[in-house]
C-alpha cells in the first residue's frame, strides 16, 4: 500500500512545550498533542509525544509517511551563546567588521546600554591578503600562505567551525572558495561556512554575521538532527523528515545541516503558514494573525493569504523588544512583529504616576498573582480575571484554580492606591493599556506597509489572544475576528500545510541601463540549478514548480532597497523599461509616492521557487461534542456598558451553524473568547468562531 500523503505529523519544539499534530488523510482526522519539552534532550519529549499520538490513533511508526519539524534550537543557541567555538577568516584590514557593527545606539537615553557581543572573539578573527573590487574584479590576489597561517592559529585554538567572509565576496566568490578548498586539507572535518553561499548579498557586517552565526550553530544542529533521524529510524519510521525554514518553506535534513541558520525562525514561520491556511479556509485573504501568549504578542500581516516576507532578521536581541539591539542577519524570514504584551505582562506605576504594562513579564514562573505560585506583581491575566473575562474555576479546563482575592489585594496595593482609583478601574486600565500597546504597534507595522488595519480580519490565537481580540479589534477599527480551533497548536498545524520552497539570492550591483544582462542571466541559471538540487531532495518534480524572480532595487543615491518583480524569462535590454516601471510601481505601492526620472540600480537578484499551495482539508475532531453548550452566566466589564451579564459557553460543545449574540464568553481548555455586547459569533462548518462587530469605531 502506498502510504504517501496518508499519515503526516507536524512537530513544533518550543522552549516550554512541544506541540504535535497528526493528520490521517484516509480517515480525515486531525489530532493534537502537547508535551513539556525535555530540556536536556528535546528529541526525547518529541519521540515520546509522537509515540502517544500514534498509540491514541492506533497506528504504527511505519504508517507515518512524513514528519515536518520546527525547532527553537538555533535561536536559543545564539541567545544563550551555547554555540561552538568559531573562527572567522576575512579580508586584511577588515577583521573588526563583526565588532564595529553598524555604529549606532539603539537606546538613546541609557548611557550604559549593552551591545551584543560578536559571535567570534577578536583573536579568532583572522585576516588574509586579498581584495576584490565592487565590480567583482580581483584587485589583490589571495595569498595562500596567509590562509595556511590562519588555519594554524585556528587549529591552535581548537575551533570547531570556520566562517569565511571576504569583502565583495557576494560578487565574486572565487577567493572564498579557494580558502574553503585549502581549509578542507588544513582543517579536515571542520565545517566551513562561506558568506558567498549562505548570504551572497551586499553589506559586509550583516553577511559576516550570517556566516558566523551559521558556523556557530552548525555542529550542534548537525548532531541534533543526526541523532533525531537515528532515533526515528530505530523506531521503525522510514518516511521523510522535513524542516520548516524561517521563510515558511520546507527543506531536507541534509540542507538543514549545511545551512542551519535558515531554521532560526522556524516556529514563528509555521504559525504564519497556519494563518495562511485559515485565511484560505474562511476566505479572508487580508488577515492579521494575532498570537498572544504569556510574554509576547506576535502580529503577522497576510495579503492575499500569503504572509509578508523579509530578507533580514535580527537575532538574539540584548533587549528583546528593542529594535537594533541584536545581531542583524541576511536571511529570508516571515516578516512578523513581536510586542512585549502577554498574559504575564506586569503592570506598574512609573515615576510620572502613569500606569505602564509590560514588557517585563511574570511569564509562567512565578506567573500572575492569581496562579498563587509566588507572583506578587499584578499582570494582564490578573486584570482579565477581575474583569470577569476569565473564570477562576475553568483556567486550563479547571486544572488551575485562580485566586481572585489575592489579585484584588495586589491590584489595590500596587496599582489602585498609588493612582488613587478603585480596583476595578485599575484592572480595566491594565486591560486597556495592554490593548493600546498592541494596537499602536500593529498600526505602525501596517502603516510602514501602507495598509489600514480596518481593511483586515483579525485571526486570534494563543492563550490570551481570544481574550483580547475583541478590545484590540475595537481599537484598530477591525470588524471581523476569527478564532480557529486548535489555537494552542497553531505552529504545528502550519507545518502540515507548508510546501517545499527555497529562496536564493545573488549580489551584483548595476544601474539598470548599464547592467550586463548576460551576467544576470547566468546568476539566475546558477540559482535555478541550485534550486533544482535542493527541491529534488524533497521529491519535488521540477516541472511542478513555480518560480518567482525579483531584485532588490533602489533609486541611485538612496541607501535602502525595495523588492521589485522581474519577468520570469531570459532578461535583456529590451525589458529595461518594463523592469523600471515595475520598480516605480512597487515604490509607489510601498511609499505612496511616484518618482520618475531618477536612475535605478539593482543590488541583489532573488529567486523564490515553490510548488503551488495544495488543497488542504484538515478535519478537527475537537469540536462539536455532545451536550449543552451554555454552561452558565457571569458578569464581565465592557466599554460603555459597565458590568453586564454574559452567557458562558463551552466551545467544544458548540455545533456548526450556532449563533451567539454578545455579550458572551466562550471557554475552551486553552483559551477564552470574549464577545462584546455589539458583536455576534457564528460557528462555521470548520468550527471556527467567526465574530462580527457591528459598531467598530
Amino acid at each position, binding site marked *: 500500500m502506498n502510504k504517501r500523503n496518508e499519515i503526516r505529523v507536524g512537530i513544533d519544539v518550543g522552549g516550554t512545550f512541544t506541540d504535535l499534530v497528526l493528520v490521517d488523510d484516509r480517515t480525515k482526522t486531525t489530532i493534537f498533542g502537547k508535551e513539556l519539552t525535555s530540556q536536556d534532550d528535546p528529541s526525547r519529549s518529541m519521540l515520546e509525544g509522537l509515540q502517544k499520538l500514534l498509540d491514541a490513533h492506533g497506528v504504527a511508526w511505519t504508517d507515518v509517511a512524513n514528519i515536518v519539524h520546527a525547532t527553537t534550537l538555533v535561536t536559543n543557541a545564539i541567545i544563550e551563546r551555547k554555540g561552538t567555538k568559531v573562527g572567522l577568516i576575512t579580508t586584511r584590514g577588515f577583521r573588526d567588521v563583526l565588532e564595529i557593527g553598524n555604529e549606532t545606539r539603539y537606546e538613546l537615553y541609557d548611557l550604559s546600554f549593552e551591545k551584543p557581543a560578536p559571535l567570534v572573539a577578536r583573536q579568532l578573527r583572522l585576516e588574509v591578503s586579498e581584495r576584490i573590487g565592487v565590480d567583482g574584479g580581483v584587485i589583490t590576489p589571495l595569498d595562500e600562505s596567509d590562509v595556511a597561517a590562519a588555519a594554524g592559529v585556528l587549529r591552535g585554538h581548537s575551533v570547531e567551525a570556520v566562517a569565511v567572509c571576504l569583502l565583495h565576496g557576494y560578487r565574486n566568490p572565487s577567493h572564498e572558495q579557494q580558502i574553503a578548498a585549502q581549509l578542507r586539507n588544513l582543517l579536515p572535518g571542520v565545517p566551513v561556512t562561506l558568506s558567498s553561499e549562505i548570504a551572497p548579498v551586499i553589506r559586509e557586517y550583516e553577511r559576516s554575521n550570517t556566516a558566523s552565526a551559521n558556523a556557530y550553530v552548525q555542529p550542534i544542529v548537525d548532531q541534533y538532527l543526526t541523532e533525531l533521524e537515528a532515533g526515528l529510524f530505530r523506531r521503525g519510521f522510514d518516511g521523510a523528515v522535513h524542516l520548516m525554514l524561517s521563510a515558511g518553506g520546507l527543506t531536507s535534513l541534509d540542507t538543514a545541516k549545511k545551512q542551519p541558520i535558515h531554521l532560526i525562525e522556524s516556529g514563528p514561520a509555521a504559525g504564519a503558514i497556519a494563518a495562511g491556511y485559515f485565511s484560505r479556509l474562511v476566505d479572508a485573504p487580508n488577515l492579521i494573525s494575532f498570537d498572544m501568549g504569556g510574554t509576547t504578542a506576535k502580529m503577522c500581516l497576510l495579503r492575499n493569504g500569503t504572509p509578508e516576507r523579509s530578507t533580514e532578521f535580527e537575532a538574539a536581541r540584548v533587549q528583546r523588544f528593542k529594535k537594533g539591539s541584536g545581531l542583524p542577519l541576511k536571511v529570508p524570514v516571515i516578516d512578523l512583529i513581536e510586542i512585549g504584551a502577554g498574559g504575564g505582562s506586569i503592570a506598574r506605576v512609573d515615576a510620572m504616576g502613569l500606569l505602564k504594562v509590560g514588557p517585563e513579564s511574570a511569564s509562567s514562573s512565578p506567573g500572575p498573582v492569581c496562579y498563587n505560585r509566588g507572583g506578587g506583581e499584578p499582570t494582564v491575566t490578573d486584570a482579565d480575571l477581575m474583569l470577569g473575562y476569565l473564570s477562576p474555576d475553568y483556567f486550563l479546563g479547571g486544572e488551575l484554580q485562580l485566586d481572585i482575592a489575592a489579585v484584588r489585594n495586589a491590584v489595590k496595593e500596587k496599582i489602585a492606591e498609588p493612582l488613587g482609583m478603585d480596583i476595578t478601574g485599575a484592572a480595566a*486600565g491594565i486591560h486597556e493599556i495592554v490593548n493600546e500597546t498592541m494596537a499602536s504597534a500593529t498600526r505602525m507595522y501596517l502603516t510602514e506597509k501602507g495598509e489600514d488595519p480596518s481593511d483586515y480580519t483579525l485571526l486570534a490565537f494563543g492563550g490570551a489572544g481570544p481574550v483580547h481580540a475583541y478590545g484590540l479589534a475595537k481599537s484598530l477599527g477591525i470588524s471581523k475576528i476569527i478564532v480557529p480551533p486548535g489555537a494552542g497548536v497553531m505552529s504545528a498545524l502550519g507545518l502540515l500545510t507548508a510546501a517545499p520552497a527555497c529562496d536564493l539570492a545573488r549580489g551584483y550591483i548595476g544601474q539598470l541601463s548599464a547592467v550586463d544582462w548576460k551576467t544576470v542571466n547566468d546568476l539566475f541559471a546558477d540559482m535555478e540549478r541550485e534550486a533544482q538540487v535542493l527541491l529534488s531532495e524533497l521529491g519535488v518534480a521540477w516541472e511542478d514548480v513555480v518560480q518567482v524572480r525579483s531584485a532588490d532595487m533602489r533609486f541611485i543615491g538612496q541607501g535602502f532597497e525595495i523588492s521589485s518583480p522581474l519577468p520570469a524569462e531570459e532578461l535583456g535590454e529590451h525589458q529595461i523599461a518594463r523592469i523600471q516601471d515595475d520598480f516605480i510601481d512597487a515604490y509607489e505601492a510601498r511609499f505612496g509616492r511616484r518618482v520618475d*526620472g531618477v536612475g535605478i540600480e539593482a543590488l541583489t537578484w532573488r529567486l523564490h521557487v515553490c510548488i503551488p499551495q495544495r488543497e488542504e482539508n484538515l478535519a478537527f475532531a475537537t469540536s462539536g461534542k455532545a451536550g449543552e453548550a451554555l454552561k452558565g452566566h457571569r458578569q464581565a466589564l465592557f466599554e460603555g456598558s459597565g458590568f453586564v451579564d454574559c452567557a458562558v459557553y463551552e466551545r467544544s460543545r458548540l455545533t456548526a451553524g450556532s449563533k451567539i449574540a454578545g455579550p458572551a464568553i466562550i471557554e475552551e481548555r486553552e483559551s477564552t473568547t470574549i464577545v462584546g455586547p455589539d458583536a455576534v459569533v457564528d460557528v462555521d462548518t470548520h468550527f471556527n468562531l467567526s465574530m462580527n462587530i457591528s459598531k467598530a*469605531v
Partner: protein
Amino acid sequence: MSLTSNSAINGVNLEILWSRLISIADEAATALRRTAFSTIVRESNDFAVTILDENAAAVAENTIGVPAFLGVLPRAVKSLLQEIPIEEWNEGDCIVTNDPWLGAGHLPDLVMASPIFLQGRLVGFCATVAHLPDIGGVIFSADCKDFFEEGTRILPTKFMIRGKENAEVARFIRGNVRLPDMVIRDIYAQVAAHRVVAQGVQKFLCRSGFPNLSSISQALHERADTAMRAAIAKLPDGEYRSVVTADGYDDKQTEIHCCIRIEGSNLDIDYTGTSPQIDRGLNSVFNYTYAYTVYPLKCALDPITPHNDGSYRSVTINSPLGSILNPRFPAPCNARQLTGQLLAGAIYKCLALIVPDKVIAESGTAPTLRAVFSGADDTGKRFSQMLMCSGGMGASAHRDGHSCTPFPTNTGSGSIEAFEGLAPLLVRRKELVSGSGGDGKRRGGLGQEVEIEVTGSAAVNMSLMADRILNPAQGLQGGGTGRPVSVSLASGRTLHPKARTTLLPGDRLTLRYGGGGGFGNPAERSKADIRNDIENDYITAAEHMLAEISSDKK
C-alpha cells in the same frame, strides 16, 4: 471613550491619551520617512514630528528622534507665531523656514508648522523638521566665512495656503537648489506628515471628548516636571564648573565654559566665559545649544521618563549672546556640530564632581569627524558621499566605553561595500585602533582607522570637518585620555582639518577616529579585564606594562 472614561485625568487615562498621541506622531513620522527621498532622513532618522497644544506647548513627539532636534520645534513654533500673527494661520496652511536662528541651527534643516482646527476652533499645532537633500550654497563644510555662502535662507513663509501649494514659494526654492525635484518631494513628505497629525488629532479629540490638547499637555508637563525636579533635588546644591577646549579654527582654539548651579530642584547652566563667535561655520545657534544641553542632562538625570516640554522647566540655560554657543546673525553655522556636540562633555565634567556614577567620560566622536567626497567617476557619473564613522564612547563607572559608537549624536555608519559602489574610492582598511581608548578602571571605547584610496582617474573634492586633533577626549575620575583624531595623506601633503580640499588620483587618505576617555583609576582595572584586553589586542601588552610601571611610580 473607554473602560476608564467618565473621570478626570488620572494615571490610567493619561497614559492611554498620551500613548495615542505619541502613536499619531509616530504614524506621521512613518509617513514622512516613507515618502521622503533623502537618505539622511531615512537612514539617520534626521527628522522630528511634534504635536503641540493650542498654546504651542509640546504634547507628544515621535519616538525615534535625534538629539539635535530635542526641544527645537516648540521653540520654533513660538518664534513663527511672533513672525506671523495667529490670525493669519488658516486651516491647511503650512509655514516653513530654514532660518538657523528660528529653527534647527543650520540651513539644510527645514522647519514646517501648521495649525490644527476642529469645527473652526484652533485646537493645536503640528510641527516637523527634516534635513533636506540640498539647500544650495556650498557643500556641507566648516570653512565658509560668510553665512550667505552656506545656502539659501527661507524666512517664514507659507509653503501651503489652505491646502494648496504656494506656487511662487515652490518655484523660488526650486530655483535655488541642486536637486529641485527631490527637495520639493521631501517638503511634501513633511506636508504628508502634517496631514496625518491633523486628522489624527481631530479624531482623537472627537473620541476622547476633550475640547483641545492643553488640559492633557498641562497634566503631562506637570508630571514630567515633577520627575525631573525629583532627580535634580537629589543632587547637592552648589556651583560646579568645567572648561572644555576645542581645536577651533586654524590657530584659534575655542573654549566652552560651563557652570552648573543647583538650588533645590532647579538647575541652571551658564556658559559665560565661552569663546566669542568666530567667522567660520562652527557657531552653534542657541536652539542647537539648547538641544545638546538638555539631551545629556536627560540621559544622566532622568533617562527613563519619556520627555516633553515639562522635562526641562526646572532647567535654565544662559548662553552669552555673541558667543560660539549663541552667535548673532549672520554668523556662519553650517558645521555647528563641531561646537554643540562638545557640550555633553562639559556638562558631564561638572556633574562628575557630584554624581560620577551617572555620567560618562568624553567621547572620541563628540564632535563627529566627517569627510564628504564629491566629484565624477570615470564614466562621468556624479557622486557625493559622506563617510559616517565613529570613534569610541567614553567609559562610565559601570562599563567600558563602546568602541566606534557615536555620542551624543546617533548617526550610524553604512556598509563599506555599498560606499564603494557609490564613489570611485577604495577602502583599504577599517579597523579598531589598539590602545586608543583612554585607560582607567573602565577603559574608553576604541577609535578606528579608515584608509581610503582614490581609484578613479579624476581628482575628488573633499570637505573635512574634524576636531579633537589637539584636544582628545578626556577621562573622568582619574581615567586617561583617549587617542586624538588625525587626518593624513600617504603622500605626506598636510590636510587642513576643517577645509575643502582636493584629493588626487592614487592619494591615500587615513582618517583616525578618536578613542573615548577612560573612567576611574587604571590601577583598579581587574586582571580579567586586562587579560581580555591583551588577548584581543584592545591594548598591547607593552602598553599595559608601561601603564603598570607608571602607576607603580605614583
